[in-house]
């Protein structure tokens, strides 16, 4: 019992620790991708190919002077970035990164993920309000409106997957997708995948839906009045959202840790080798989505706010409903899909 607890603790620390590292390097990766797309070099001064750049960034932000606006509500102003980061992180607890490697598997895992994402809005809203600046406030109001609107479509997209899997547990969603690519939910639920993917852009506040912090109109959006480490926390939360969104997409639609055609290609794989291969597969799939997010960010221009709302309510939501109806009908006709 004690040993089991210790093992679980080590696993938790390891998963969250590597998540930290991934988030730090996601920033580096983003800058490199942006540089390549704009025909620049990107960070290459600190360390080999600039690989130590994230640590330099963190150090710089830590050493900067902390400025809190005099009219700000100090307690809430301090609390807001912490809420953002914590909520972004604990979503990851549900995600299995290899067979049997997850922090928790509760039978309502998928609902838990949706619920925690919805709490994340409060970090942004609180930040906007407590700064007592109109740019922050506008940014945070946009953020909360955007997040509630897109969460609906996201939930509807997930309903399709839940119907197919007949379980809300994240682990069984991954297990139901097997190593056969044809059983991955991206094949079985293409429309749902598209809706979920678009909605996760909005949930992660990424371009083309980054209206809460659109620089040209709102200075910096909800974190205009933040500096130093508190700003770093928001920055960190943003990239954690990116990683977590990619992980959720991988888990729900791309078979999670499942290695495609594993028993055919690598029949002899078992024990720790299998686990390592699965973790590697998971990371590769996740990085694919991270790259797609960045690709879109540096390619598409920002939406107008009314267009954003129109897309969410007039197109994604009906499409999500259609997806649920189609999936249910399909299951009714071909019982045991």
């Amino acid at each position, binding site marked *: 019992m004690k040993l089991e607890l210790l093992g679980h603790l080590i696993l938790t620390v390891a998963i969250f620790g590597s998540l930290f590292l991934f988030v730090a390097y996601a920033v580096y990766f983003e800058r490199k991708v942006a540089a390549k797309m704009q025909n620049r070099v990107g960070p290459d001064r600190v360390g080999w190919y600039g690989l130590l750049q994230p640590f330099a960034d963190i150090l710089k932000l830590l050493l900067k002077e902390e400025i809190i606006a005099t*009219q700000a*509500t100090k307690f*809430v102003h301090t609390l807001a970035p912490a809420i953002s980061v914590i909520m972004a992180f604990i979503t990851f607890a549900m995600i299995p990164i290899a067979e049997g490697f997850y922090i928790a598997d*509760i*039978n*309502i895992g998928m*609902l*838990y993920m*949706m*619920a*925690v*994402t*919805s*709490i994340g*809005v*409060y970090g942004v*809203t*609180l930040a906007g*309000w407590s700064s*007592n*600046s*109109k740019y922050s*406030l506008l940014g945070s*109001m946009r953020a*909360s*409106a955007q997040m*509630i609107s897109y*969460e609906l479509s996201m939930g509807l997209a997930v309903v399709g997957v839940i119907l197919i899997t007949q379980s*809300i547990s994240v682990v069984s969603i991954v297990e139901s997708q097997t190593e056969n690519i044809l059983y991955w939910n991206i094949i079985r639920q293409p429309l749902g995948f598209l809706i979920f993917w678009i909605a996760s852009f909005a949930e992660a506040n990424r371009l083309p839906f980054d209206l809460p912090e659109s620089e040209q109109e709102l200075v910096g959006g909800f974190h205009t009045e933040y500096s130093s480490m508190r700003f770093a926390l928001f920055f960190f939360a943003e990239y954690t959202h990116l990683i977590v969104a990619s992980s959720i997409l991988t888990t729900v639609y791309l078979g999670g840790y499942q290695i495609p055609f594993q028993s055919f290609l690598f029949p002899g794989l078992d024990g720790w080798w299998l686990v390592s291969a699965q973790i590697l597969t998971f990371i590769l799939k996740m990085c694919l989505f991270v790259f797609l997010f960045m690709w879109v960010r540096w390619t598409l221009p920002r939406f107008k706010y009314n267009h954003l709302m129109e897309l969410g309510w007039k197109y994604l939501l009906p499409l999500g409903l259609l997806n649920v109806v189609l999936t249910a009908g399909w299951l009714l006709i071909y019982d045991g899909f």
Partner: protein
Amino acid sequence: MEVAIFWLLAVIIIASAAATVFSKNIIYSAFSLLFSFLGVAGIYAMLSADFLAVTQIMVYVGGILTLILFGVMLTNRITMMSLKTDVFNFIPGLTIAAVMLAGLLYVIWVTGTWASDSPAAWDTTVETIGTLTITRFLLPFEVVAILLLIAVVGASFIARKDKQKIQS
């Protein structure tokens, strides 16, 4: 252990509910309401209603409270930070609430005759709830669905600004 968690949650719920009701600043009210909703979700989880706990967080924290915050931000000049609202009828309100509390406590502790031994906890409630929804509770479920539709249409109709009014 269980008792300690219960008291912790109870203190969180009561303290934040009291802050919601007594606070002069609406934003503080709204945010203490957040903690009270979360505490209630914890109580649901303690009562082995896991599905309801998550639903509580999703609907109340993710939906209703965000709506309430919107209501606060749209109906007050928020950047001025003066979101103070008065409390009126303080003494009558307090009296009625206290009398009501006393009555409820009397009923619960003195005249209540219900069994208080707890049967075995449910393992998971999701499947049972799912089955019940489409069997025994099918009619209420459909009625509630229609009601939600009506509420959506009604709410958007009421909140919509009159087009003629804007032009004039």
